[in-house]
Structures are given as structure tokens and as C-alpha cells.
């Protein structure tokens, strides 16, 4: 595992990379892909992260936010070959996050999946724009969040298909789950379509866990906190599917479980 504490170029050469960002100032990161690669990026400390990536090979990137203080990130990805980008965010820390992510599908047959799994006890704001800039491109957004007491979630998710990007697809699903009254989630799904021959969809739900579900679980002896923990884990665990490395996947699953236990059992 390598630690990053200053401006860096990350080269993805086909070997799995595990990096930790630990900086007390703003940093700039550039990601260059030389071969199909998986990258795990743990954020422990940073004020603001500016990241630029030119994606020319299939690439999976998982950002795991472990920061104890507020961070802001601005990320730009340009997919300039018929490559597939899979970028995922695990946001289960106890600090605010402001994240702006733009992905430009700038080559025919390129595709991108952006997914977030968030356990929210603080304030998290995500601005996401996926743009189909060339024909036959495929953009997918999946946001899953559990909003806990005192948590506030804001997601503005835009799927944009430009004129000429024929036979492209843009789909998004955003779901936020809460357990009590008074928790706040705002999700704005937007589709900006400037081409006729395309497929696009969005699905969104914000809701409280059914009282009957909680009654059922509690009737087996589980407290409300234990129910919250189990449901949250089931809701957010699929984020670890982003990573195929079995050791890292298990580590992440354990970490997610630990974070959820910490936040839900408080």
C-alpha cells in the first residue's frame, strides 16, 4: 500500500493498486491507464482532491472515504477508447463530503458505471454528470444510501446524451432509505437528451423502512439499532462487488460491517 500526500500521477499498468491519500492540503491527482487495472483509493485526509483521468483501458476504481474531517473532491474522467470504467464510492465515514464527478464517454462503445454506497450520519452532497458524447455509449448511475439520524443527503445526478450520440444509453437509479422521521434526503435525477435514437431511464425512491418489516425483525429479538445495522448492511454491501480481488473484497466487507456497526449502534 502506498501513501499519497502530494500531487501525484497514478499509472495503472495492469497490476492491482492499493493507495491511501493522506494530505493536510489540497492535492491534484492524475490517473493514466496503461492496461486493464483495479485501483483501491482510501482517503484518510485531504482538504480538496482534484482528480483527472484519461481512461483508455478497462478500469475499476473504488474510493473509500475514511476521512475524519470534511473533504471536497472534483473528479473528471474522459473515456477516450472503447473502454469500460467502473467507479464506485464507499461513503460510510462520519464527516461531510462534497463531491463533483463528471464522466465523459468520448469514444464509440465506451461505457461507465458510477455507483455510490453511503451511510449518512453527516452531510453528503454529490453532483454527478455522465455525458454520452459519442454514439453507442453506455452510462449508468447507481446511488444507494441509508440516512441515519442527523444525516443529510443531496444528490444531483445528470445523464446527458448529446446530439449525434445515437444508440446510446443513459440509465440511473437512486435510492435512499431512512429509519426515522426527520432525516433528510434530496435526490434530483435529470436526463438531458438531445438525440432521438437512444434509451434512457431514471428511477428514484426515498422512503422509510416499513414499520411491518421492523416489527417482524424485532419480534425475533432484534433491537431497532440491530435492525438498522442488518438492513443497512444488506443495502450497501453490493458496493464491494466492484472489486474482484477476493482478499480486498473481504477486507472491504469487514470494513463496511465495522463502519455500519459503529454508526448504527451509536
Amino acid at each position, binding site marked *: 500500500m502506498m501513501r499519497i500526500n502530494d500531487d501525484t500521477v497514478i499509472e495503472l499498468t495492469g497490476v492491482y493498486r492499493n493507495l491511501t491519500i493522506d494530505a493536510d492540503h489540497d492535492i491534484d491527482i492524475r490517473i493514466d491507464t496503461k492496461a486493464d487495472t483495479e485501483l483501491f483509493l482510501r482517503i484518510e485526509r485531504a482538504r480538496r482532491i482534484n482528480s483527472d483521468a484519461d481512461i483508455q483501458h478497462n478500469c475499476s476504481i473504488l474510493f473509500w472515504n475514511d476521512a475524519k474531517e470534511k473533504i471536497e473532491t472534483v473528479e473528471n474522467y474522459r473515456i477516450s477508447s472503447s473502454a469500460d470504467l467502473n467507479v464506485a464510492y464507499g461513503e460510510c465515514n462520519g464527516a461531510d463530503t462534497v463531491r463533483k464527478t463528471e464522466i465523459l464517454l468520448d469514444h464509440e462503445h465506451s461505457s461507465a458505471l458510477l455507483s455510490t454506497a453511503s451511510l449518512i450520519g453527516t452531510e453528503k452532497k454529490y453532483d454527478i454528470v455522465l455525458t454520452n458524447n459519442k454514439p453507442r455509449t453506455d452510462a449508468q448511475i447507481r446511488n444507494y444510501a441509508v440516512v441515519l439520524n442527523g444525516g443529510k443527503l443531496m444528490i444531483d445526478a445528470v445523464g446527458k446524451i448529446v446530439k449525434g450520440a445515437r444508440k446510446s444509453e443513459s440509465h440511473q437509479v437512486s435510492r435512499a432509505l431512512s429509519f426515522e422521521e426527520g432525516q433528510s434526503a434530496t435526490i434530483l435525477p435529470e436526463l438531458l437528451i438531445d438525440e432521438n435514437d437512444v434509451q434512457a431511464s431514471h428511477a428514484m425512491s426515498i422512503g422509510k423502512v416499513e*414499520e411491518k*418489516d421492523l*416489527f417482524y425483525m424485532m*419480534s425475533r429479538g432484534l433491537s*431497532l439499532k440491530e435492525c438498522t445495522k442488518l*438492513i443497512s448492511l*444488506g443495502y450497501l454491501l453490493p458496493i464491494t462487488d466492484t472489486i474482484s480481488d477476493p482478499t480486498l473484497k473481504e477486507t472491504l466487507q469487514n470494513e463496511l460491517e465495522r463502519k455500519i456497526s459503529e454508526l448504527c449502534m451509536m
Partner: protein
Amino acid sequence: MWVKHMKKLEIKDLFVSVEDKQILKGIDLEVNEGEIHALMGPNGNGKSTLLAAIMGDPSYHVDHGSILYDGQDILSLPVNERSKAGIFLGMQYPQEISGVTNSDFLRAAINVRREKPISLFEFIKTMEKTINDLQMSEDLAHRFVNEGFSGGEKKRNEIVQLEMLKPSLAMLDEIDSGLDVDAIKLVADAIRKIQEETNMAIVIVSHYERFLELVKPTFTHVLVNGKIVMSGNADLYDRIDKEGYDWIYKELNIEKETEETPGFTRVSLGNCAVAETMKGQK
């Protein structure tokens, strides 16, 4: 001389309402450890309401009366504490819990009852045996709780939970509905086996004489218009099976409750009192 402590459920003058509609109107019932009580009565007279109120379903409001279990006032306890006190409700319509596997759910439910968590090895061994006993699919442990289950699978899964959690009082609400003939016998045998092993008390709601024959209740109660109007032994459910409920209405000179409030529909076969009440208020 050492005397074995016997757990007892004591219900006194219980009135329960849902959405301002009075369902139970003065229930008195005692159930001792080791006893099997069958709760019978026409649909929509409050049998499910009684079981749900004992478990603490928040949809039901206890207006008056008391419920003690093992000398403890359980009305003051949250639902999970009632469960930990030994009370189990096998539900008529078990919920589907998406994203939560049966094994995670049951392991958590077992651990809240223990000081030291169950070892993974012991848990897997017990779960595999229970799944096998109930002839459930081998992948049950890894499937989400009741999600995509058939009606019969859901009911058998309730019995899997019963066997794993080993309560001291099991309330089974139409646990036989949705089961085919073979599964009814399988479930009844499992209930009897658990009862013999643990000496748990059982309160069972069922419309099927065949199921009751297999479970062999020691007492039968008939619930009409929110009250227990008749109690007896096994002969009573046998007679009800042969003659229905009309003779009880005649013998006790009870009026059948029909339309009471404008907007409420008459309860029909296959619908519980609460479902009908909620429908009437829409």
C-alpha cells in the same frame, strides 16, 4: 422440596383496538408452560389481533387490561424484549426483508439471547440440521428473508426460526395456511417435536381440523365478537369441524356482528378483522 418454575401467560380483561375500531372486548386467558391451546372462531373476530397484541405489533392499541408473562408485565416491554422473554409469533403473512439473509438474521436473533455469540461452526451445523428437518432448500441460509419464497416456504421458514430460537411460548397464526398436505404433516411434526424437547406453551390459530389433530391441542377456545365465548378440550374443535359455529351462536344466544359502522364492510371468509377494518376506512 425443589419445585420446577413454570412460565405462565396471563391475560386479563384485554381490550384492543385498531384505527379506533374495537376488535378485542375483554379477553381472559391463561396458558401454562407445556400446554397447547387452539384458538378458533369465525374469520374477523380477533384471533390474529390477540396474538399480534401479545407480541406488541404497533398497529394495535391496548385500551385496557393486562398481559403478564412469567409474572412480568409485557405490555411495558418493547417488541424485541418480549421476544427475548421467550415469546414467538409465527406470522400469517411473514414479511420479506430484502438484502438481509436468513443466516445473518437468525444468527443476530440467536446472539441477542446469549451472553457469548454462537460460534460460526455451531450456527452452521444447527441451521443445516433445521433446514434439513423442515425439508427446505439448501440455499435457504443465503437467501434474503422470505424474499421470493412461496406461501408454503414462508410458513416453513417461520418454523425454521421457531426451531432455532426455541421460545418458551409459541403463538402460531394460521401457520398451516398455504401448506400442502405433506407439508402440513411435516410442520405439525416439527412443532410437536420442538414442544416435546422444550416443553414450550403453544397458542395456535387454525381453521383446519387436520392440522389441529396432528398438533393435538389440550385446550380449545372459541373467540366470537372479540371475546372468548367458549372453552373446552379437543372435543370442541372436533365438533366445530363437523358442525361449524352456528350452534355456538344459538346455544349462547350471541348475535352475529355485521355492519356496525357506516363504511365498514362485513367480514368475509379468508379475511382477518384488521384487514377488513383498514379496508373499510379507506
